[in-house]
């Protein structure tokens, strides 16, 4: 098991949004990656975006500029 660490986690309404956000972040060099949706956020399956912690406002701005509304966004230990 990897050591738990704090991350900013974004859950999406659709997988399409998740893929669109990954594409958007990659095109702008924004750090992060898609991970399985943590059960603390939802018991369903799906994908979440995991970004470095500390700048939730910056991540929210990135989502806004991508035109994507997050379902959940929180900093947590995973």
């Amino acid at each position, binding site marked *: 098991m990897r050591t738990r660490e704090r991350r900013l986690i974004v859950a999406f309404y659709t*997988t399409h949004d998740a893929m669109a956000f990954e594409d958007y972040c990659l095109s702008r060099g924004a750090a992060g990656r898609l991970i*399985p949706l943590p059960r603390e956020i939802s018991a*369903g399956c799906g994908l979440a975006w995991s970004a470095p912690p500390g700048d939730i406002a910056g991540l929210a701005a990135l989502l806004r500029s991508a035109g994507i509304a997050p379902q959940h966004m929180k900093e947590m230990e995973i």
Partner: protein
Amino acid sequence: MIYLDNAATTMMKPSCVVDAVTAALTTLGNASRGAHEGALNTNRLLYKTREKLAGFFGCPKSEQVIFTNNSTEALNIALTGTLRPGDHAVTTVLEHNSVLRPLYRLQRERVVDLSFVPADRRGCVDYADFERLVRPNTRAVVCTHASNLTGNLLDIRRIGEIAARRGLLFIVDASQTAGAVPIDMVDMGVSMLCFTGHKSMMGPQGTGGLLINGDIEVEPFKVGGTGVQSFLTEQPREYPTRLEAGTLNGHGIAGLSAAVDFIRQTGIDAIRAHETALARRFYEAASAVPGVVTYGDFTTWERCPVVALNIGGADSALVCDALSCDYGIATRAGAHCAPLMHRALHTEAQGAVRFSFGYFNTDADVDAAVRAVREIADRIG
């Protein structure tokens, strides 16, 4: 074999399509079933291909590009998902059974009422009929973009204007035109576009899609696994997941994606010009052969590269078989799943032999087909 059955499927595919499918067969996991690179690669492929198709067909939202196995599945989803008990729909006699049979089933099971725009002996419609047939309970106009039998194009922009003016859904079967004729859903007023990937798109069989323009509630035709919201007892409501239960044909979609790239790089206008030139070359020579009767409107070349004909009173199946066995030329005989079109053309008993041309055909293919028609006509004569 000289392959002149491109309206059934394009047998020759661009090499980039072959390469894409081959690569996909050993690199793709199951989209949305995991977050490992294999699954994510497929998610990325689906996302990029939705974006490409949305741009290609002028669909405003790429999440409303729904992958299906073919046009038939897309049409079943569109029709069954929007027509409600007591609704009325306007369609045409040009339609393929992929439109007709879902409509007939809705007529039986949901008491959906149907009206058919007729066609004349050349397979042409009077556009005023679309407006004339609208009733207070009409919900949709459903029509093909081109007859798969005659190759006649319908002016879907004109029909779209009528549908918009009357507040109707406009559902288009683009089986014969997607990839061959430019389509812009917004510009043409198309609410839902149904296409297949394996004909003029030059992609693999088992691919296609339904594109939805605007806020249209389409109820799912099938429900099941989506990889998301697993504890919901109902299908998730968000597009595209709402209409995509079960594992998608990722390998085929990889080929479809490459096919869109090929069409864009080659140019749809260049593809169309080549195919039209072939059809015209064939028509002008074959229609001059004594005993040959052609079907369709050849007063314009704003049409699909299809020429359907008969030779005297000969059974179309026997002519088609002679073309195949004696000349190695692949065509399609019979009814072409277009019963009402054949009825309008008075070819129900005889059927017709359909020659349909594709991007990889050549003038030499056309000339061989003309020689074969001439020889068969001489034999029958």
